[in-house]
């Protein structure tokens, strides 16, 4: 082995590594920010592991004495002797609420988007901003007419009523996302089937719907988390504990005199789990879909 090849194998001598202070500063800031934002999550997790006796303001930052899941069990199944209702029933209520509400508003949004992007009609340029305006109406401002409307429809106080509210409130955002998604799909695809005699709904069902999956993923993640996490509509529309979604039930779990923080925290984690999982597993599709829509819209 010659000296030359030896050198080649080693590679050129590296200059002493320079420390980029700018980069270091960025990381310091990022890590500090991450720690700051994760602190509540840390509290949530460790408090959920503690026993009621361990929970105190003085020792709130301390780690639990061990891995105890009693609080989770209590939060999930409840304890009648102490008057704590478990969340299991309400968790399922939330599922029965969020799944149909998500599917319903996604489907409606997709059809709206189809019409607004591919069947421009007189006034569609006025209608679209009007629909979007719905996004900016604060929930609080419509509560009284909402309750009255639901009462007339005999849906007040029930999960179907809540599903209805969320579907309607979801229409603006789902319409926006789908309109932009469909705007990026060549109109020739639609025209080619128009010339073959496909009907308005036929084109949607056979041509556009099958290639709408990226749009549906984005819309469904968005809708699922906003319906699941909603508290205000839940507390207004449902008054009976048996039909309340988990967010409302979690709030009601806190007793009037004492709050069992460990159970409360465990319940919070249980309540947050579905949206967390959805985001972990589908989050990357979400980002991708959002970008695809926005770039071409």
């Amino acid at each position: 082995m010659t000296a030359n090849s030896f050198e080649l194998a080693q590679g050129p001598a590296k200059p002493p590594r320079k420390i980029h202070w700018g980069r270091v500063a960025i990381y310091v800031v990022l890590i500090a920010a991450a720690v700051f934002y994760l602190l509540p999550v840390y509290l949530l997790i460790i408090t959920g592991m503690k026993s009621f006796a361990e929970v105190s303001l003085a020792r709130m930052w301390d780690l639990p004495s061990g891995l105890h899941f009693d609080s989770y069990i209590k939060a999930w199944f409840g304890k009648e002797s102490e008057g704590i209702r478990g969340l299991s029933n309400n968790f399922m209520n939330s599922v029965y609420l969020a799944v149909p509400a998500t599917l319903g508003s996604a489907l409606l949004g997709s059809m709206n988007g189809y019409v607004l992007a591919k069947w421009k009609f007189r006034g569609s340029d006025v209608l679209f901003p009007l629909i979007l305006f719905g996004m900016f109406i604060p929930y609080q401002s419509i509560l009284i007419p909402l309750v009255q409307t639901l009462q007339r429809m005999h849906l007040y106080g029930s999960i179907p009523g809540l599903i209805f509210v969320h579907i309607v409130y979801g229409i603006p955002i789902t319409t926006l996302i789908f309109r932009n998604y469909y705007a990026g799909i060549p109109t020739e695809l639609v025209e080619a089937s128009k010339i073959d005699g496909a009907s308005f709904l036929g084109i949607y069902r056979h041509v556009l719907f099958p290639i709408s999956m990226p749009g549906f993923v984005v819309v469904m993640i968005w809708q699922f988390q906003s319906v699941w996490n909603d508290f205000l509509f839940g507390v207004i529309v449902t008054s009976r504990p048996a039909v309340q979604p988990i967010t409302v039930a979690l709030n009601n779990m806190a007793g009037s005199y004492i709050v069992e923080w460990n159970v409360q925290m465990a319940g919070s984690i249980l309540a947050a789990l579905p949206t967390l999982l959805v985001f972990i597993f589908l989050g990357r599709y979400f980002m991708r879909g959002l970008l695809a829509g926005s770039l071409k819209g």
Partner: protein
Amino acid sequence: MSEVRLVNVTKTFDAVAAVRNLSVTIRDGEFVSLLGPSGCGKTTTLRMIAGFERPDQGEIYFGDEVVSSGEKNIFLPPEKRKLGMVFQSYAVWPHMSVFDNVAYPLRVIKMNRGEVKETVDHALSLVKLEGLGSRYPHQLSGGQQQRVALARALVMEPEVMLLDEPLSNLDAKLREEMRFEIKDLQKRLGITVIYVTHDQAEAMVMSDRTVVMNEGLAYQIDEPRKIYEQPADRFVADFIGLINFVECEVIDERTVLLKDGTGVHKVECGIGDFNKGERAVLAIRPENVSLGAGPIRGTIKRAVYLGNVLDYRIMMGKIELRVQGEAGVIYNEGEEIDLAIGRCLLFPPQAC
């Protein structure tokens, strides 16, 4: 029945006239190209024939039936016009197999299963895609996708087929092949074809007649040969093929005078409607200049070997001429030669 007639058709988008007063009759079984630079209104014309746009004024007839009328507010939607259409972007549905793509129009009219299979297989064999029915569009090349689009347009056996720059996304070699294939198909099936293109060679090869369009107007509607040899005006002459324009002055019934900055030359040319003493523009195709002998002296400025011909730029005084000569005799750059101007045309002078 399958004659397509446009009468004084006008279409305006936001105060910009896309098509102006276009009248053309496309005969049964004819292959007609709409040719022009981008933005000339050719695609808008096709889309009006298809029924995707409504003309503001004028009428479109299929046979004796009015399908669009701006004034009378008659409008037959695309699906009732019994057309086949091929789009520039192929518009093949990505989630359907080749078979399903082609079968789609048949399923819309609820044809029974056995017949669908037979009809689709026949259409696929017409475009030479036998055996590829189960593939998906993303597994096909661009040319194959375009064939799928063709088969889909043909499967209903339309009498009129519209093609919107169908070959412009293909590579040069394939484009050349497909020209002949589409032409063959048209002849074999005897259908009327209206073909939009910006590629003059495509229009030349395939069309029975070509409509040369610019800025919404039809400049000339003629057979390819006439368009090349007797262009109606300077735009058409310039757009189709190569041509030299040289300013000149008419001196008598068959002669014009050409000033090249250093001397004057007499060139024989039919003067048509021009009067003696009038200024005009002489238009000369590169192949109509003969090299080696003649009354005019020029210097070769550049010579490019193109295989079948040699492409010269020749300085005639201060005028540069583009000339194509046989590849048999090669003149070198800088060489002085004699030349003669053969067939040529006269156009009125233009401010430009």
